[in-house]
């Protein structure tokens, strides 16, 4: 080990033991625990779904009552959206983006650590509330007046609304970090036209988070104040408006779906490119498609409200806007298929999940086009048809790519390969189980079954499809068990992974598996769109150009210009710190206290202010400096 590596090791090292665990600001460690936590919430929310499916397996079943059922479906939706889907996508990005752009850490490492703690505390809080029978009961959409204090007395909805606040804060932190990382920390030479598509997708996603989250923050804050101090934002009897909630919620809620789906598009591009062993076809249109989806996503929230009696002409505008989303999506589907057709594809497990994505997402996308049509939506809105649709786009469109990406990136994250045979078993179980569960729901919706019912009467023709769906959900559960087993076994004694097991083109694979705490021994320099390939046939490149001059004795990275990635200065990133954790704890106290008493906001602000002040106290940022010459 050379002296400079030794130096790097020391300046980027975490403190040992438990202290190191709670103070770390390493994007890889934070991302790994973020991903693991999100997977735990995924399993918990999935268990709730299994209970609900069992309840619906036959008509007039009395396994659980309406109150439990309502809490369960509210919790299932909220946890899947706010505690699994968005966080895990961001967590994967926290791991992958700094490596892909060739830098040593994420832009604001302490904020990153803080974001994880806030997310963890918010998630734990809502699950504890659920176990104590104060879980949410008005659905993940929390429509007023059902969620107002008149119709949802007690603290159930307050916990839900406060959980939104937690996840908002966490998501916004990560979004800001990713934007800053991508815009200012790219390796020299990685111009805008050389950014990997996954990084593009995360950049667009992060901007969407920044623009979408304030809307729901406003919505949930209005709800909290309506409930806590009697403001009347949503109360029609006092001059408020229940539709205001729906507008604010869906102005966030629809982009939210793309916030989940957009990173998945980036994952697909990465996997397709690597396993087809050729550059992705039509890179520039692909980027434009991502950006276009990001913009369009903000112009179509009203398609969730076609049944609320808005003027027909306005509705038609949103029909057209919603359908337009199919243009960039269709374009991307074409480009991926063209890439596979003109490449030399290998069908390893990640690629298998991509194939599953095609089969499911295209179907979900087409039912989405149907839902954009006002008259058709008036029939199928709020029925099981919609349940089928959004599970096809969210599971087919996001969870399949995510699982593919897990098999794809797991070797880099852990240094071990994920079991291939078990992976194939898992894929087929999940794919078949998914279709058996959700395909019959299309039919159920057309046959008149509304969503969010805890039971249904016999004689409406709904018994058989419901039973089939329930059986399918058990298959999916088995598949998730296989995945968990596979992860556990591979972490313990998986086959060791080489640096670049798949022959991938991007900088993520230009370091060891797992990467050292400083990511790259020397800062890589990029001369093309595929730094690790010498030609368009995907032949590997051995000699990656590197740049010297960044100090090894402190946590220095290069900052570069946003468009051309010309290095402009060196910048020292902060050291590990306990204060993000204390700040997160103080903020958690404030948030939870305010559920019970408005004075919690006032008194709780004091410890929060203290911890944040200490965290942000100006200091010389050269603590890791070993010797200043």
């Amino acid at each position: 080990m050379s002296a400079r590596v030794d130096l790097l090791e020391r300046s980027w090292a975490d403190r040992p033991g438990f202290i190191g665990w709670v103070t770390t600001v390493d994007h890889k460690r934070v991302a790994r625990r973020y991903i693991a936590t999100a997977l735990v919430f995924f399993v918990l929310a999935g268990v709730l779904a299994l209970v609900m499916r069992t309840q619906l397996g036959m008509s007039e079943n009395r396994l659980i009552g309406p109150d439990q059922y309502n809490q369960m479906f509210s919790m299932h939706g909220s946890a899947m959206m706010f505690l699994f889907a968005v966080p895990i996508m961001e967590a994967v990005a926290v791991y992958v983006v700094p490596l892909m752009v060739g830098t040593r850490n994420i832009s604001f490492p302490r904020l990153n650590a803080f974001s994880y703690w806030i997310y963890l505390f918010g998630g734990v809080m809502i699950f504890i509330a659920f176990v104590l029978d104060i879980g949410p009961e008005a659905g993940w959409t929390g429509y007023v007046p059902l969620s107002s204090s008149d119709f949802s007395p007690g603290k159930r909805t307050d916990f839900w609304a406060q959980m939104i606040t937690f996840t908002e804060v966490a998501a916004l932190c990560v979004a800001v970090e990713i934007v800053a990382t991508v815009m200012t920390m790219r390796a020299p030479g990685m111009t805008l036209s050389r950014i990997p598509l996954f990084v593009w997708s995360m950049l667009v996603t992060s901007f969407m988070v920044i623009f979408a989250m304030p809307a729901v923050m406003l919505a949930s804050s209005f709800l909290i104040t309506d409930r806590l101090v009697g403001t009347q934002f949503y109360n029609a009897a006092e001059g408020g408006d229940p539709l205001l909630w729906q507008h604010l919620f869906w102005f966030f809620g629809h982009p939210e779906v793309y916030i989940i789906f957009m990173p998945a598009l980036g994952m697909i591009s990465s996997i397709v490119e690597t396993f087809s062993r050729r550059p992705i076809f039509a890179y520039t249109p692909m980027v434009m498609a991502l950006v276009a989806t990001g913009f369009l996503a903000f112009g179509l929230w009203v398609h969730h409200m076609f049944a609320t009696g808005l003027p027909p002409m306005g509705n038609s505008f949103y029909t057209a806007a919603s359908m337009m989303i199919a243009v960039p999506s269709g374009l991307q589907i074409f480009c991926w298929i063209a890439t596979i057709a003109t490449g030399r594809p290998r069908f390893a497990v990640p690629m298998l999940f991509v194939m599953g994505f095609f089969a499911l997402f295209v179907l979900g996308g087409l039912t989405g086009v149907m839902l954009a049509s006002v008259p058709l939506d008036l029939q199928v809105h709020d029925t099981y048809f919609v349940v089928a649709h959004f599970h096809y786009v969210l599971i087919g469109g996001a969870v399949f790519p995510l699982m593919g990406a897990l098999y794809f990136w797991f070797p880099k994250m852990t240094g071990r390969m994920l079991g291939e045979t078990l992976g194939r078993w898992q894929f087929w179980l999940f794919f078949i189980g998914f279709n058996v569960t959700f395909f019959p729901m299309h039919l159920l919706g057309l046959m008149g079954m509304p969503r969010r019912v805890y039971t249904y009467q016999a004689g409406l023709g709904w018994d058989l499809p419901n039973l089939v769906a329930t059986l399918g959900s058990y298959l999916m559960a088995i598949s998730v068990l296989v995945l968990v087993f596979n992860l556990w076994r591979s972490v313990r004694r998986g086959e060791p992974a080489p640096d670049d097991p798949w022959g991938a083109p991007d900088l993520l694979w230009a370091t060891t598996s797992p990467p050292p705490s400083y990511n790259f021994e020397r800062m890589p320099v990029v001369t093309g769109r595929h730094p690790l390939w010498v030609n368009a046939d995907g032949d590997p490149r051995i000699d990656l150009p590197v740049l010297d001059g960044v100090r090894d004795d402190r946590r220095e990275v290069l900052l570069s210009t946003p468009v051309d990635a010309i290095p402009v200065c060196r910048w020292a990133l902060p050291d590990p710190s306990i204060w993000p954790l204390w700040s997160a704890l103080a903020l958690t106290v404030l948030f939870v206290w305010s559920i019970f008493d408005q004075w919690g906001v006032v008194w709780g602000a004091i410890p929060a202010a203290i911890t944040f002040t200490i965290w942000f106290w100006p200091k010389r940022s050269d603590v890791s400096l070993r010797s200043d010459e």
Partner: protein
Amino acid sequence: MKPMRALLPVFAMLLAACGGVQSSLAPAADQSKAIDHVWQVMVWACSTIYLFTLGALAWAIWRRRAIATREGVSRDPMLSRALFAWVVLVVGLLTWFVAISFLADRRLHGGTPDLEVRITAKQWWWQVEYLSPEPARQFITANELRLPRDRTARIELRSGDVIHSFWVPSLSGKEDLIPGYTNAVFITPRRDGSFRGQCAEFCGLQHAHMALDVQVTDEATFRSWVSQQLRPASSPVTASALRGAELFNTTACASCHTVRGTPAGGRVGPDLTHLASRRTLAAGALPMRRDDLSKWLDDPQHPKPGNLMPAVPLSPDDSNAIVDYLMGLK
């Protein structure tokens, strides 16, 4: 796709059941037929695109590859042209979809009504008022809607508490009932029969048991039903029913329910003036039978847990008497 093929026989069976009383696949009114037309067009067009896309994917996977060809270039003119053509095709299809949607949507909102009904949704039942310019020809019922065939009804929609959604799939699309707003749907039924509607917007504990019984008949039958509904409640005849009426008016019942022509004038629960002429109880939770009515009275929280009707402690005799009285309210 393997799983789909395995499920085909199942779907064949299901399709037979699609002509149900609550199915959008068996339209029985102008409005639902207009929507069904859009559905037919879209389902065929979208299925074709789906199969085409998967076909293209299959071709991409299994095509023969000439080993030495260097196709791995990013700018292939043929492919670029194909991409352009594909985007044009997608845009064209979407334009067509938008056009047929717009035209169908216009058909849902038009028409001169022959009949006006106001429906107010409450947790968890429907109050149905037949409106008329003459106050004497207005009446209120609950959880049932009767419509004459070939006549256009305008149904005004309001909410008494939270947001609900009016939905009778065989007759029309859904429309929300929102506090502070007045919405409306038009229905022109073209086929006699019984249809079932159900609340489609999650509205709390008993969202699952909030059904509406809809009967479409010819005009003469409808008129005779109207004139029967306009009459005040029939007087009890048997001794037990007389005692039931007495009990009804002196215990908790009358404070929530109205029986026209009697002292009972509560407005919280459904109007019971012609309860026994309806086909269901408790917004479709139970069929209208003597046994079920008596079960309902004894413990309303069992068949419909969480609903707002309290269990009133009554001796079996008293309960029986009230059931006798109610069964006489034809």
